């Protein structure tokens, strides 16, 4: 075993825990929780099934850790107080607030202590529980509160056998796990959903992380324990395909004896990748990707372990080919980590969505036929992202209001970059740095909006005269930066007229997005005419797929 790890094991076994050691434990709890964050999110059904318990608890722990990471004190009482302060400041969601209360009680018990020994640890767990229970007039059992209660009891029992904090943790962790497993018996909505309580599981991971650290176990890979059936992500199999994997095999089975997960996983790892194991009512579901020559191996192996009830096998290569043939393939959105800036963009069409995705957008809201998404549509797009820094690009002046309402309703830090059309939104994306400072990036993106000229070409639905331009119903019109500029008999004329009005010759790049009402042959023809007229500009043609507008043109 690693010398450093051995030294750590010795240290925790023989010396009481001081401020710096507590800091290490907090970090370990945070790291392990983060590694298992998605498992916790997938369990979230109470009080509201919004799938963010894991993320909220990570954000809370992260805030607690940020408060102490540069703190040099060896006094455990001071360190605990700082942890509590950080957790309070950053508490997110129901579980995050309860977690902050657990830390508050924990810190109170350690108030005048230099170091943490067995009996202080037990008092701290008890005070944590008491403080947490005081924070609500109707505590709901079968939640993180119950787990905290059972942890405190287990710690008290352990103290009768040992004074050593590591050994107390060794008693507490299995008790916490058992408590989590009992939660469906206490809270009916959990039983109905077939899950354990997400907050309780989150607390379990925090404590388990601390024990793993003291035992020298790794904290990066999530456990190979099974997940609930509902948490298995099988639909996204397409995105996980590695080269060499040709078949997806999913087997439902009832094992004859208790399944030894470690050797089960080990056997499967010899056959393929993307292994997931889910547990349902008395049955298991195994999912794996295998190369063609191994396609029967999982079934043959599992046959020896019990009774197979269902097998599904799918040819991944054939599916990928199918998907690549169709023009509407999957849109790859940017993965976001906590602390990064996530951009939510509203998009009217597939092609434009794809462009936004390629620029690093984290979430897309389909504007639909009327470009009128609701506040809830916008909110849903970013509420479950694992970060609390969000920028919204409404890309239409009518959507700015809904975006503002979404901002009011959420606890996340949301800035709106007031893009009034697609070209402005795209220009803003050029200035995104997901690791940057939210205010600075917002300012940059907002400035960038003004540097682009947007032309929208569509068909007039009524006869009007606006801004000196008279339009008859059925004519093609072009708006430059939202103002009616041209009315013409054809799309080609409208485009060319608008480009002239926009002084395109003074700019460098003209991007034409053609909509779903224009055939690509016609779009190409018009693009060629534009190229001929503006030889020194770079002209790009993209299939935007947007409704209503034959062309959306960005000039920059």
């Amino acid at each position, binding site marked *: 075993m690693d010398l450093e790890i051995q030294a750590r094991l010795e240290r925790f076994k023989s010396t009481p825990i001081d401020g710096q050691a507590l800091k290490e434990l907090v970090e370990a709890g945070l790291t392990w929780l983060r590694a298992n964050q998605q498992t916790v999110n997938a369990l979230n059904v109470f009080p509201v099934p919004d799938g963010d318990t894991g993320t909220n608890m990570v954000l809370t722990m992260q805030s607690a850790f940020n408060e102490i990471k540069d703190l040099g004190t060896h006094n455990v009482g001071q360190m605990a107080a700082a942890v509590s302060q950080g957790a*309070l400041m950053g*508490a997110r969601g*129901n579980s995050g607030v309860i977690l902050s209360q657990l830390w*508050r009680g924990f810190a109170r018990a350690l108030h005048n202590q230099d170091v943490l020994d067995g009996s202080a640890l037990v008092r701290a767990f008890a005070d944590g529980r008491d403080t947490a229970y005081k*924070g*609500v*007039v109707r505590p709901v059992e079968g939640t993180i509160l119950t787990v905290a209660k059972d942890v405190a009891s287990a710690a008290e029992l352990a103290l009768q056998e040992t004074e050593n904090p590591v050994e107390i943790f060794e008693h507490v962790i299995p008790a916490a796990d058992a408590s989590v497993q009992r939660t469906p018996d206490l809270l009916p909505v959990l039983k109905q959903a077939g899950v354990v309580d997400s907050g309780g599981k989150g607390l379990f991971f925090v404590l388990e992380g601390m024990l793993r650290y003291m035992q020298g176990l790794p904290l990066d890979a999530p456990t190979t324990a099974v997940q609930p059936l509902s948490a298995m992500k099988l639909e996204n199999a397409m995105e996980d395909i590695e080269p060499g994997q040709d078949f997806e095999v999913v087997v439902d089975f009832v094992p004859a004896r208790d399944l030894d997960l470690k050797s089960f996983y080990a056997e499967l790892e010899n056959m393929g990748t993307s292994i997931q194991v889910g547990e349902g009512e008395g049955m298991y579901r195994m999912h794996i990707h295998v190369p063609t020559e191994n396609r029967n191996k999982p079934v043959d192996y599992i046959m020896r372990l019990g009774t197979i009830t269902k097998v599904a096998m799918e040819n991944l290569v054939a599916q990928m080919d199918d998907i690549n043939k169709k023009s509407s393939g999957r849109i790859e959105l940017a993965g976001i980590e906590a602390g990064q800036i996530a951009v939510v963009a509203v998009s009217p069409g597939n092609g434009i969505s794809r462009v936004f995705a390629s620029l690093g957008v984290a979430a897309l809201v389909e504007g639909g036929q009327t470009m009128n998404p609701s506040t809830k549509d916008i909110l849903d797009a970013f509420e479950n992202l694992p970060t609390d820094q969000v920028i919204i690009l409404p890309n239409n002046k009518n959507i700015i209001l809904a975006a503002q309402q979404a901002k009011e309703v959420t606890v996340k830090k949301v800035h709106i970059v007031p893009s009034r059309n697609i070209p402005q939104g795209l220009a803003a994306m050029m200035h995104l740095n997901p690791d940057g400072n939210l205010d600075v990036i917002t300012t940059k993106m907002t400035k960038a909006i003004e540097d682009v000229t947007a032309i929208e070409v569509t068909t007039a639905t009524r006869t009007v005269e606006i801004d000196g331009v008279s339009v008859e119903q059925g004519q093609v019109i072009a708006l430059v930066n939202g103002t009616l500029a041209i009315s013409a008999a054809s799309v080609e004329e409208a485009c060319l007229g608008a480009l002239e009005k926009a002084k395109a010759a003074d700019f460098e790049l003209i991007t034409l997005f053609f909509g779903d009402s224009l055939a690509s042959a016609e779009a190409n023809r018009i693009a060629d005419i534009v190229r001929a007229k503006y030889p020194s500009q770079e002209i790009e043609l993209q299939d935007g797929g947007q409704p209503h507008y034959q062309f959306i043109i960005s000039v920059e």
Partner: protein
Amino acid sequence: MGEETTTLGTIQISPNALATIAYHATLTSYGVVGLAPKNLAEGLAATITHEPARGVSVRYNGEEIDIDVHIIIEYGTRITSVADSVANAVRYQVEKALGMPIHFVNVHVQGLRVSNPD
């Protein structure tokens, strides 16, 4: 309010019923240690009439349903997160029971209760 006509007749859901759902959703939200009547008069009236959902008001203007809850929060918790959890829980429970969207859920923090002098 909350009227639905089926082949068998009409279903009407009263504001009081919604208020009760909102009340229970609020009480079980973490951080809430009480509900507060908006003013003394309402408080007295509520006590006399044993009103189950004091501190909660449900308003219907013919089109939209708005719910206001007035709560007391435990000192030492993060107020915005607690209020946010209350709003989410109330909205979720009422919309689930009603089968219709609610317009606004407004959470008013009327005070803090100190149970643990830190």
